[in-house]
Each structure stands twice: as structure tokens, then as C-alpha cells.
């Protein structure tokens, strides 16, 4: 069985498709810290310097989803679903001018998912 760490809702996919049409290739990066921390950010590919400390959690609608290793250590027992909500997030994430904000909905990995993904 191939389990995943990340998923995306249909509503978020629709927003993402509009952004892809406008900007081309994109990435997700999971933020942490103050204010809009703990929210997923979407950027043009190449915008953000990534290296081996950025863990690739999976692909959503053809877009890589990254999280920093330090943060991943605390998050890896949970499954993340990218959703979208109305709102006015403050960051450089590309969906913000559309009046919507990507957010993460989380659940615990099942024992089966956990043993395949984290062992």
C-alpha cells in the first residue's frame, strides 16, 4: 500500500490551478513561527532556496510540498491536507491577493500509515 503524507481538497486544487495558469511551476513550503506561521506558502519554483534540510513530503496536483527538517521531526506523525479558506493572510504566498488563504487540516497517521512512512 502506498500511503501519502499530504493531500489537497478540491477547493484548494481549483485555486492552485488558477495560480499555475498565472505563474507556471510552483512549490509549497510549510512555514512555522509567528503570525501566519504554521500555514502553507505557495511560491514560484526557484523562488525559495531549498537544500537537503527541506524534506519533500509529497506532490499535490503536480506541486512539491516541502517542510524544513527541524519542523518535520515534530510533524511527521500527522497527515496534512491543504485546504483553502476565505481570509487575508500576511506573507508572500501567491494566493493572498485572491482573498483566500491556504490552510492545513491535520489528522494523525493511522498505525499502518505510520509504520510504512516513518520506519
Amino acid at each position: 500500500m502506498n500511503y501519502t503524507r499530504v493531500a489537497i481538497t478540491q477547493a484548494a486544487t481549483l485555486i492552485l490551478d488558477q495560480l499555475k495558469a498565472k505563474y507556471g511551476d510552483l512549490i509549497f513550503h510549510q512555514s512555522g513561527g509567528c503570525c501566519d506561521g504554521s500555514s502553507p506558502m505557495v511560491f514560484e519554483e526557484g523562488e525559495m532556496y531549498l537544500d537537503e534540510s527541506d524534506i519533500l513530503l509529497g506532490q499535490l496536483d503536480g506541486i512539491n510540498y516541502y517542510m524544513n527538517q527541524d519542523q518535520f521531526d515534530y510533524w511527521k506523525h500527522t497527515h496534512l491536507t491543504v485546504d483553502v479558506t476565505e481570509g487575508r493572510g500576511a506573507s508572500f504566498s501567491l494566493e493572498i491577493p485572491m482573498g483566500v488563504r491556504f490552510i492545513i487540516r491535520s489528522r494523525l497517521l493511522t498505525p499502518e500509515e505510520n509504520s510504512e512512512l516513518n520506519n
Partner: protein
Amino acid sequence: MDYKKPKFKEKYENFIGGKFVPPVGNEYFENNSPIDNTLIAKYPRSQKEDIDHAVIAANKAKEAWGNTSAAERAGLLNEVADIIEANLEEFALVETCDNGKPIRETLNADIPLSVDHWRYFASAIRAEESTMSELDIHTVSLNLKEPLGVIGQIIPWNFPLLMLSWKLPPALATGNCVILKSAEQTPSTATLLMEKIADVFPPGVVNILHGFGPEAGKPLASHSGIDKVAFTGETTTGQLIMQYASKNLNPVTMELGGKSPNIFFNSVMDADDAFLDKAIEGAVLFAFNQGEVCTCPSRLLVQEDIYDAFMARVIERTEAIIQDNPYDVNTMVGAQASNDQYEKILSYLKIGKEEGAKVLTGGAACHLDGDLANGFYIQPTILEGHNKMRVFQEEIFGPVVAVTKFKDEAEALEIANDTLYGLGAGVWSRDAHQLYQIPRAIKAGRVWVNCYHAYPAHAPFGGYKKSGFGRETHLMMMNHYRQTKNMLISYDKNKLGFF
């Protein structure tokens, strides 16, 4: 009800080069109040061209402004302080409307503190002296502090006027021109301030722009015409801003939040007195400003032998919090600043429960009646669990505290330091040894000892670890906005003798 929503114009403009100007693209965004989700006003949706204009205006002004005397600059900073103070109630009301925080907080904290930061830096720049050394009988080394030039500042929405007042005064006091982008959720008090102080500074010295991060924030942070960026926000944007700064070889300072531990040792319950009462309030301060504070004491660590008795008091005090209309002076907890924050907090309450955290109180949205039904309210919430849970590791930025117990000093420190961040911490004890040794061992830039959530000017504030770097609210911030000119002077008439 003591206050109500203030009146606003239909739309506002950017302040560039000493006057209000519409955005080049003539586009505006609607800014709503989180209290009832009704429109406040329209604000400019600035783009790169607007930033370009501000950069030109600031660069034009920087030489003359950089050569003004400290006395002149200090005088203008004091003038701003006096203007804010004279209009305190108006600023407080607009801030409450824009951010959702209770009016008693803006009247007694946000606005008076803002006034004081302007006055503090006016004083600091007057009192300061440079250094010199006599290296030998003929040679003198003279250190002069010179402004960097043009500063870009990006501020958050949790304390809109106060964050502006942490950032603008030290940059202006040291002779820099500033381009500040307000947070898109809370552009109102920055605009009100510029209306009140439009004529105080020479044109181009202070420029305030509004707009979205990717459209206006990024062009500001990456602009080759600025000399430094100061940022408060989260880690991913922090990394991007540092990347942009690296292209321009510019310095940066940043404050990126935390997950601050608030530690209560058993001696706090040695007596049921005023100090215990203060300690219980100290634990409940997680709900201050709806938890939307970078140093929110969102991890509560309580020694196991007092855990049950202490938490019973903390829960009782939390449940006595009045959460109601933010315009009411009795309200203690108001609205979260935006719908996306509200949704984010609810998603954390869900995952916290799934991870096995026990809800000791709260744990859900707060539904208020009438117009407030459309606002964004969350019940003050206490979750009991362990430090590896995500609700213990991520800044929820809501009125939510995660509590756990510890058995001794070693375990308290292990839990306190088991975090990516290091911005704030609290230590509560009646033991004089603990009051020094525990704060020394905590990896955080500010440790409150037998107090919490005090932010006076002249106490430096800034982060360890992933919470950032730079020290604000203190005269050391002035050096983050300056470079040192070393003048090395020889008073020797004789040549070296090499050639």
C-alpha cells in the same frame, strides 16, 4: 456599551514623499473588521511601481535627513509621541475596530506603549555618545555612527500601531528614511498616524504603503534601492527576506515568533497570597490579545506536586474571562484578527484533541449574538498533553495554552528548551536560586521572572534559535540601523620611513 465602530472614509491612500497618493494601478482592497466582518474602508493594493516611487522619495530625502542634528530628530519624535497621546482614544478605537482586540487593551496597552517608544528613542539618541580611543600618543581612533540610509520595514497585524512604534523610532532617530508596509489585515492606525503627522517630517523621510505580501512586500524586501530590511513575521517569509537581502548584501533583523514556556515551580503555592494570585494571572496571560502575541505563553509547565491545585485555580480564572464585544470596556478577550486565523486555530484544536490532548476548558469557537455572530471568536482554551504534541510545538496564535507537568528543575528545562524557537519564557518561583539559574539555562531572548507580558522600552527584546535576531525596544536597536565610521587620525608630524 461604551464605544462603537468609528467612522472611516470610503478609501485611503499610500503616504509617499510627504503626501497621500493613490496607487499607480489605482486598485484597492477591502479591509474588514474582524469584530463583525463588516467593511472598514478600502486601502491601496500597491505594486512594485508604488514601492519604486517610495524608494526614490526616500533616497532623495536621506542625505539631508541623515545630516540633521540629534536634537532636531529627537524633537520630531517627541512631537509624534505628543500627537498620538493627544489622540489616544481615537487611535485605540480604530485599532480595536481593525484588529478585533478589546478596547481596554488598546486604551491601556497598545497606544500608551506606542507613545512611550517614540519618547524613548527621542531620549536615547540625545543621551548617546560615540567612542574614541587613543591608540598611542600620536594616534586617535574615533568611532562615528552613521545611518544606513533607507530602511524597509514589514510589520505584522497583531499589534499594528505598537509594532510600527517599535520599528519607526529607532530607524528615524538614527537618521534613516523609512518605507514601511503595513499588514494587509490592519492598515488603519498606520494611515491614521500619517494623517495626524503628515507635516512633521520632511517629505520622503517616512513613507507608508499598503498592499499584499507577494505584490508589495516582496518588491520592498528585494529592492536594490534600500539598505536594510527589518521584519516581524514567520519563518518561511523570514528565509525569503534573507535571501533577497543576500542579493543586495544588505543587513536584516527579524523576529519570527516562538512557542514560549511559562514555568511554575511548586513554591508559588507555599502561601495563598498576593503573589499566588499574580502567578495564576501569569498563567492565564496566554489569552491576552487573543493569544496573538509572538511571545504568547502558550506552553504551561507546572510542577507535578502542585499541578492539580494550581490548575484548578488557573481553570477557574480562565473561565472567569469576559469574552464579548471588543468595544465594551469590560471585555477581556475579543475577536481573532481574521477568518483564516480563526480557521487555523480551530484546525489546531481538532488535531490537539486527535493527538490525545485533554480539553480542560474551552476547546471550541465562541458564538456571540447579533452583529458579532459574523466575527471571529475562539473560547480561551486549556489543553493538557505532552511536549511532543503539535499543539505544544507550533505557535497557534490563538487563546490556547498547552499544559504539561514536570517533576524537577532538570525536566522543566528539558521541556522548556525542546522547541525550535527561543523568543520568550516565564519562570515563577519563590526560590531565589531558581529565579536566577533557571532563566540562565533557558534558551530564549527574553525571560520574564515572576512576571509575564511586560514590554517596556529600555528592555531589549529579540529571539534565540529560529525566533530570529536583533534586539528591539532598546537603544541597541539603533546600531542595527547604523554603520560605524572609524576615523583613524595621526597627530604625528613624522613619516613612517618606509619610502
